[in-house]
């Protein structure tokens, strides 16, 4: 607990420094950011609406982090920074967190942001946000005065600070969103927030326009006058549009060929910095209740039969990083001290023999079906196509099954109609939010995509995950998660391949492009054009 407190104090000191640098403004900056200009973004995500409090996912988080402010924001070292909360304290027992809000923040309709709005937002997120575990430990929220919020917890909950990021905790005005059913509130499409930009128009599925919020509480920000987001039906057209200058920035690329093409484009910079908190991992997931994949030796054998180095270096052109376990590399809780399943067909053959799956006359031990998420060419289709020849070497015949669209795939996999599937799943910050769901036996829920679809069941893992979720001591917590990672990789319900190669591509002259742990899913208030655009 002491360590937690130290961390909180350190954060407070960092906070004060950061606040100081903000007020000091351009004088301290190396080169003063220029105000003005329009930024055209290209995306393939269609936001159903803009209310990130009740809708997760990248398509909504991208605009929601511009429209709404949140209590905290994060730097690239996973350290919290002040945002709507100018400072915060974690109680000694870890069972409450107090936020001290800035007193000059206003919503775009002119009303001030108060503690009541924060309380309302936390309660709304707890009730309606798809990530149920995220605020589950929150019991009550008190508002002793207009600018102080006290969040009470059932137990120490270290993940809370990360859950206060812009991508996860937009602060909504209670007087707008508190009326009637929030799911059908018209303000979801015409949002009122206190972030650096405000929405001025949305043509469903086609484009939306964000304009500078002149009342934004951080003085001198944002620098851009306008952000126009154009929605593309496919990434290829979007990449072409970046190449020929129609679009200034593609905030979230994930296809290797797109990244490589734009790396070669003149006047375009491609950055893969950040995104660690989104933590996207590409993996192969077994149906562990189906024979012969209920045998750990068979799963491990397939792990040894696949050359991960070939996948990362050749198929993915070195653009993606190798992932070794369930916590994405880059997270302070990730460890590489796990079995790496280095390519070893001999060992794979031995394990399969040991499991009693002898080769037949034609050299085949058994036939299996492999699925992949539709649309993912490099990390999906190409990888499973490679598996066809890789597993043939150890006597396994692979039949690749294609799904025409996402609901077809999700229907098959979540109803356990599969042997093995490629899948890419996001960590979403803390393991409590995006990692535990895949391994907790209590989360084996038929029909629910990205629950424990492998039907993996290990009481030791359940215990470790439940303990780590409430462990306040960061070092102890790290140990618990390290042990969890070791066991899961050993049990191999999932074979971890690589990170999804997220990248931002932007026109030269655009400065301070977000490179923090949330990648492009954070406020673009400090972004500016160094040359006239």
């Amino acid at each position: 607990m002491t360590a937690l407190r130290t961390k909180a104090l350190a954060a407070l000191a960092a906070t004060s420094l950061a606040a100081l640098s903000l007020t000091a403004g351009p004088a301290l900056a190396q080169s003063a950011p220029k105000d003005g200009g329009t930024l055209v973004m290209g995306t393939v995500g269609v936001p159903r609406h803009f209310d990130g409090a009740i809708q997760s996912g990248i398509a909504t988080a991208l605009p929601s982090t511009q429209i709404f402010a949140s209590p905290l924001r994060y730097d690239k070292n996973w350290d919290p920074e002040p945002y709507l909360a100018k400072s915060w304290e974690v109680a000694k027992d870890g069972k409450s967190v107090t936020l001290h809000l800035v007193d000059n923040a206003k919503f775009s309709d002119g009303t001030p942001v108060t503690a009541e709005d924060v309380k309302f937002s936390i309660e709304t997120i707890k009730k309606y946000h798809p990530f149920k575990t995220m605020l589950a430990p929150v019991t009550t929220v008190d508002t002793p005065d207009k600018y102080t919020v006290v969040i009470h917890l059932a137990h120490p909950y270290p993940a809370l600070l990360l859950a206060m990021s812009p991508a996860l905790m937009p602060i909504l005005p209670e007087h707008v969103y508190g009326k009637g059913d929030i799911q059908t509130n018209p303000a979801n499409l015409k949002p009122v927030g206190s972030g650096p930009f405000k929405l001025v128009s949305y043509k469903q599925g086609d484009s939306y326009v964000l304009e500078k919020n002149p009342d934004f509480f951080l003085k001198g920000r944002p620098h851009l006058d306008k952000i126009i987001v154009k929605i593309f039906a496919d990434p290829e057209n979007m990449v072409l549009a970046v190449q020929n200058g129609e679009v200034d920035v593609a905030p979230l690329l994930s296809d290797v060929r797109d990244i490589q093409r734009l790396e070669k484009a003149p006047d375009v910079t491609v950055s893969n910095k950040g995104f660690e908190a989104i933590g996207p991992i590409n993996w192969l997931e077994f149906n562990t209740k189906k024979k012969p994949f209920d045998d750990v030796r068979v799963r491990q054998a397939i792990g040894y039969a696949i050359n991960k180095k070939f996948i990362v270096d050749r198929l993915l052109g070195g653009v993606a990083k190798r992932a070794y376990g369930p916590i994405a590399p880059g997270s302070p809780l990730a460890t590489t001290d796990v079995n790496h399943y280095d390519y070893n067909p001999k060992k794979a053959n031995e394990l399969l023999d040991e499991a009693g799956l002898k080769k037949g006359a034609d050299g085949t031990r058994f036939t299996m079906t492999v699925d992949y998420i539709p649309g993912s060419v490099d990390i999906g289709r190409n990888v499973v196509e490679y598996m066809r020849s890789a597993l043939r070497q150890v006597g396994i015949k692979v039949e690749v099954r294609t799904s025409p669209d996402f609901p077809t795939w999700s229907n098959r996999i979540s109803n356990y109609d599969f042997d093995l599937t490629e899948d890419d799943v996001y960590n979403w910050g803390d393991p409590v939010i995006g990692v535990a769901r895949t391994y907790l036996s209590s989360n084996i829920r038929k029909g629910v995509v990205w629950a424990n679809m492998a039907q993996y069941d290990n009481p030791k893992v359940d215990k470790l995950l439940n303990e780590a979720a409430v462990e306040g001591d960061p070092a102890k917590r790290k140990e618990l998660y390290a042990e969890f990672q070791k066991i899961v990789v050993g049990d191999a319900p999932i074979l971890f391949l690589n990170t999804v190669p997220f990248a931002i591509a932007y026109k030269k002259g655009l400065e301070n492009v977000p490179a923090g742990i949330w990648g492009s899913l954070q406020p673009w208030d400090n972004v500016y054009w160094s040359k006239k655009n």
Partner: protein
Amino acid sequence: MRKLAPRLISAIGLLLAVLVLNFLLIHAAPGDPVQVIVGDMGGASPQLIAQMKAQYGLDKPLPVQLGLYLWQVLHGNFGYSVYFNMPVLDLILQRLPATIVLVLSSLILAVVIGTLLGIFSARRPRGILSHLVTLVSLFGFSAPVFWTGIMLTILFASVIPIFPVSGMFSVRDTGGFFAQTLDLLRHLVLPSVTLASIYIATYSRLARAAMLDVLGADYIRTARAKGLSERRVVFGHALRNGLIPIVTMVGLQFGQLLAGAVLVETVFNWPGLGRLAFDSILRRDYSTLLAILFFSAILVMVANALTDLAYRWIDPRIGGGRTRKATKTPAAPGSKSPGPAKG
């Protein structure tokens, strides 16, 4: 009125069939809109999934859902788009103008260019240029429309970037009405040519066959013998009769043109009904897709009715008892045209 009533009854029956069949077809596809939404959200709890299914009525048995849907449509309510979060009718009205612009411009382009090419090659059927027209038309006809679209995009938006990659307007401010119209036209060129490419082939082949037929008729020889200029003979006398199969084809192909728009709009990111239909299929947005198909059916019916009217205008003898016969058995390429309107 006597003729209108049975037509109306069959039209209503047809629309009902369109609704019911499409409803059953889209529900036969695996998954539902809630799965798509959950996919976009990066996962959701079972409670939230159950709540959303109940909210959108997806927890009810299929026949009940169908009954409720038909009842709703009967009252002029096409439902709420689960994915796009707005009333379906508003969504369709928002997208309709883009499709009308694309489809009409492609249709005009296909008919005008196709007919001119047809006339041109009919005049010298064995000339090199005639063969060239045949070759180009066949290429346009054989190439899949999405492939043509992608090739044109690569060529004219990337290699020689003279046209924008996609969309209907530049997202940046382009200026006043005149500048915006020019901007629209620039965006329209590639999708419109792509969609027209298949139909140019159809119309040029059709016009060629019809014109060959007509140009060999006695009344044309008479017209020429009278000393009329070739231009007057072709455009004043022959073309009017040569147009009958083309008009028939326009009416018949209107539905196909809308189907082609789905692909072209998707390739070129054209914000019309076609792309909306494509998005709705992928996202299992049932109400949106059903409404698009319903309105498309109405559009096709209207197009057929207009074709009937056009016949009467082109050939005043068509009408009365013969109208329906002409509608049902459109003149095939190379078949005998109804004969000279005037000597």
